[in-house]
């Protein structure tokens, strides 16, 4: 008698369970669903306040001036806008990178929560005695984190644009939603989400509780913030070749960290060394 289910069914089973476990815990459920909107609201408030009270003056003799000039070189079509609008478009252009914090934090949270939970409840050993393969388990867990990351980031991006229109800056959306936005949301979000999950797995293999694991994994936030800062101060603008290199680098990092995570997520390692 064939007693084994298909790999797809097993992976789906893992994903469904992860969602049940994560969303049955108030803290982790709130973190995953509310955090993206907090990040969005924070971005909107900063954008509104700076535009309203500082406006173009923020660009005069400040560190942002170089960033704005670089932005105009890359996107010459915005030069026809007023200085105030240029500033708003420039500022909103950083938002897709800022939103990379959402998949980063959700994936890290999912990974650390779900794996440390398994360690704490000692469910990994009985799980490893079933026909589920370790790669299926890892994939199921990472997809369970990836889907909410993607969906919530996209929803938040949509809400952000909606709010921009509601504030009365709808005419700027055509300048804001450029190729950088699309590449960021379609390519970088899943890549960084996956990378964050793998870092979460690696952190979880060493940590005893989700907080400890998150502390180890949250290091991924630093390069994301670094991209935003580099663009703001005019070091670079991630378009064209630079963006391609970043994406390719991210793919390489994903593969490297996947291998590291799979190495740590072997049956033997889990049973013998994970404590």
């Amino acid at each position: 008698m064939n007693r084994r289910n298909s790999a797809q069914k097993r992976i789906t089973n893992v994903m469904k369970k992860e969602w049940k476990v994560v969303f049955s815990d108030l803290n982790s459920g709130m973190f995953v669903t509310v955090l993206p909107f907090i990040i969005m609201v924070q971005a909107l408030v900063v954008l509104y306040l700076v535009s309203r009270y500082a406006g173009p003056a923020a660009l005069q003799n400040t560190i942002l001036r170089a960033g704005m000039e670089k932005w105009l070189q890359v996107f010459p079509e915005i030069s026809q806008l007023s200085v105030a609008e240029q500033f708003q478009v420039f500022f909103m252009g950083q938002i897709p990178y800022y939103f990379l914090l959402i998949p980063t934090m959700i994936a890290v949270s999912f990974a650390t929560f779900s794996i440390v939970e398994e360690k704490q409840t000692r469910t990994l050993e009985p799980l490893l005695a079933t026909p589920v393969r370790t790669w299926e388990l890892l994939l199921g867990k990472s997809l369970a984190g990836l889907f909410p990351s993607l969906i919530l980031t996209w929803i938040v991006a949509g809400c952000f644009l909606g709010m921009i229109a509601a504030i009365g800056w709808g005419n700027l959306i055509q300048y804001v939603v450029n190729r950088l936005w699309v590449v960021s949301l379609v390519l970088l979000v899943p890549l960084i989400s996956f990378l964050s999950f793998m870092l979460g797995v690696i952190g979880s293999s060493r940590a005893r509780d989700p907080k400890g694991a998150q502390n180890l994994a949250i290091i991924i936030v630093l390069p994301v913030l670094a991209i935003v800062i580099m663009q703001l101060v005019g070091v670079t603008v991630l378009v064209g070749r630079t963006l391609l290199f970043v994406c390719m680098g991210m793919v390489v990092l994903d593969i490297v960290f996947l291998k590291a995570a799979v190495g740590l997520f072997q049956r033997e390692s889990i049973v013998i060394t994970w404590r």
Partner: protein
Amino acid sequence: MAIIETEDLTRTFDTRQAVQNLTMHVEKGEVLGFLGPNGAGKTTTVRMLSGIISPTAGHATVAGFDVSENVDELHEHIGLLTETPGFYERLSAWENLLYFGRFYAIDAESQAAIYLKRFGLWERRNDKVGTFSKGMSQRLALARALLHEPDILFLDEPTAGLDPKSAREVRDLIMDLKKMGRTVFLCTHNLEEAELLCDRIAVFQTRLIAMDTPENLRSSLFRREVVVELESLDDAILTTVQNLDFVETVKRDKTSLILELQDFDRNRPALVRAIVEKNGNITSVFEKKHTLEDVYLTLTREEEEL
């Protein structure tokens, strides 16, 4: 037909040898008690036989599958009860069972229902496992191990930490499994439990010290002894007994005599006659029964002395 076979199965952790050259076989339908002190390597053996960790040397087949090569197939045929039950405490008993059951090509819902009812947990199926007592969790873990109707069950300390009533329930379940013809590999510290449930006993301390039926282990270690209890025991009776030519050894314990006899069954009546003729008032005569604990302690002591 052997359903578990091992040959020189060995597992080393760094420099420490946890299991050393284990060679044994377990027959289909047999309940094997795997006894040994803490840290003897019992759990490591179970983990190797259930394909969770690999042997460092040697090999083993379980249900015809190599434990290193055919792990995926092996897992379809075994059920494992780990020392700690291990459940998602925020999920209900029903959700937990379905999750584990859905890794197999079975009707997880109906199997979960069967075993929840069988183990008296049906009424509590929607309760979170975090609210369960240890006994309930252990029964749920047994239900999980049985969901896919495995040929072989590995039970690691199934009654450890349970109150007497829960332990009794778990033992009854194992008895039922035995009647159903399941092969059970039972790791336990509880020697009474092993005596009650197991067809054969393996005494293990890093290596296999002995493996046989409880009766054969007893007879290989201890000679048969008869105990004669008297109302009072005087020197005349003791001298008479010591002078009987078929009596090999005599020990006195208050008003009782413990004797080893040549041709035990034939000479026992003669012994009784001799005591009665000396006006000894016998209150009872019985064969001294060595417990499995005696067997276990003798074997492990000998091993430690080596």
